[in-house]
């Protein structure tokens, strides 16, 4: 019996994943975004094996000359910095940092946002009032100054960058999930669940949550994208983790070097990576947006 159940659940999981794959590949742009993300994830996982050098290791060309500010070539596919660091290695290793920050803060923020939205929307009244005013206060916080102050207080550590992003970014998802929860809780099957004696916990997480899931996935993708952008901005301003290489951090070093006008390859590559990854996430989220709001499909 339990083996039966396990196989049934596995089947459910497989059909569930197949369904998500179908949603994502249903239009060309989101399919493109999906494969770009997969590519970045693979690079992030195997980064230490792909990168030929350490991020802050001075490199020399085949003739033994110090490779400073070299444009892209066969040996240095994306060129080098003025201090002779290999940009390709930096780029590959930074993918890891960026995806780590993006995934962690994106996912934690959607979990916080979803829970606050569900609880506020379901209970209404005073609970709603308190949680939503808290959200409003966060809306009043300017994004970058908040992160800059937090980092200056606690230090340039990866954890604090992630924490700062999470603290700010959940606000939009909380609002949207709350609105959707209020709409769903009016439906007859929620009253029926109450009549059946379901606890509030059960109604929220088993009856409402699955019904807001498309929206939740949409905002999960948004949150990840925003986390990546925020991390890049913070790092570019010098408030990233100094010990870990990131795309924004690479741009920060370029700025410090003062070689922006000379080394086009230095600013082009991390910028392209940021834009490509964020755009891919937005493309994938578009596919979920169509599920959450079918009217978009007809356009």
């Amino acid at each position, binding site marked *: 019996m339990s083996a039966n159940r396990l196989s049934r659940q596995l089947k459910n999981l497989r059909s569930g994943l197949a369904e998500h794959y179908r949603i994502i590949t249903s239009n060309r742009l989101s399919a493109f975004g999906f494969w770009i993300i997969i590519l970045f994830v693979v690079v992030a996982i195997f980064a230490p094996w792909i990168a030929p050098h350490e991020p802050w290791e001075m490199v020399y060309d085949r003739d033994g000359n110090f490779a400073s500010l070299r444009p892209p070539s066969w040996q240095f596919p994306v060129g080098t910095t003025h201090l002779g660091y290999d940009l390709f290695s930096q780029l590959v290793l930074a993918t890891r940092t960026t995806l780590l920050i993006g995934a962690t803060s994106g996912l934690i923020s959607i979990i916080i946002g979803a829970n606050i939205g569900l609880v506020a929307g379901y209970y209404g009244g005073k609970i709603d009032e308190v949680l939503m005013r808290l959200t409003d206060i966060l809306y009043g916080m300017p994004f970058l100054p908040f992160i800059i102050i937090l980092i200056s207080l606690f230090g340039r550590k990866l954890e604090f960058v992630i924490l700062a992003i999470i603290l700010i970014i959940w606000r939009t998802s909380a609002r949207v999930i709350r609105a959707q929860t209020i709409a769903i809780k009016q439906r*007859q099957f929620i009253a029926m669940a109450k*009549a059946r*004696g379901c606890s509030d916990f059960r109604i929220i997480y*088993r009856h409402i949550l699955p019904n807001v899931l498309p929206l939740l996935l949409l905002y999960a993708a948004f949150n990840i994208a925003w986390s990546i952008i925020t991390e890049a901005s913070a790092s570019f301003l010098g408030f990233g983790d100094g010990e870990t290489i990131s795309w924004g951090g690479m741009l920060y070093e370029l700025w410090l070097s003062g070689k922006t006008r000379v080394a086009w390859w230095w600013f082009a590559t991390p910028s392209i990576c940021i834009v490509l990854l964020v755009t891919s996430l937005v493309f994938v989220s578009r596919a979920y947006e169509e599920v959450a709001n079918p009217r978009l499909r007809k356009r």
Partner: protein
Amino acid sequence: MTKTATPEPLLSIRNLGVVYSTSQGPVHAVSNISFDVHANEVFGIAGESGCGKSTLIRSLLRLLPDNGRMDAGLCQYKGQDLTAMSDEAFRKNILWQEISLVPQSAMASFNPVHRVGDQIIESILAHRDISRAEARERSAGLFDVVGLQSDLMNSYPHEFSGGMRQRAMIAMSLSLDPGLIIMDEPTTGLDVLVQERILRRIREIRAEIKSSIILITHDIAVIAEMSDRIAIMYGGEVMEQATAVDMFENPHHPYTLGLKNAFPSIRDIGSELISIPGSPPTLVGPLTSCPFAPRCPFNLDTCHQANPESINIGTSHQVRCIRTADAKQFRKLAREKSTWRS
């Protein structure tokens, strides 16, 4: 059909009222409701739309919206005072376990994202300490009782037809052997053939289970067919309450007479239906007159001055009307179309 009344009723309600606070002032959706439901009995509540039937059951199940407030002189189930019970205790011990519901629209009453069977299993597991497999077996048995194949349990609600969903809803209401099942218009929105099948199923189930049923409907024919005792509601109050036989052979309230007229009988095919002119009261503010007086063809000045008390006529027949003495004459007049012209 006749039952000997047991001394201790299953559900006992005295002076139940529900007030909704709205921007237009308090709306007395339900007031002065008193009735008993005995063990193994079908108690029918009939009335037109907006008469407070649904509000009444929502208040019994504590499903009133936030602006609704219920107060009752007495609300006793199996000797327990329900009004004194905390929400948590009510949810754990009464809801579904003792009082279950077959809702108005089975179409919208299943969560679209879960399988039908899983929702029934969920209601069992929420109250009983048994394994999932046992709950599954029990649900399959219930599907059998309502005449659905048990492999349909793995379907989603949208894969069911209206009649199937209604039957699944009835299966769900039976899942914990409740003492009382409230059926809120169980056949509304279904076509006549499906209606008939559902009613037959309910009748068959009645023979098998011990539960009492409160049957709420605006369909006089359904209620006449199914109920042991009937209450006729109008304007949030019970106008007349009697055994089914009494209600149809010996009706007293002018509203009951009008309601009976409004439904076709097989015997007088071709004759025009007689309807009651006017529309139900808005119920803003407490009632200061008989709620039916403005539409009643037999009203007197006194009808507009005070809301009449319920009067006992016979052992289990109550009427809220001051002119019960003239009932025999009313019955004759009510059959004339000219009587009901406003």
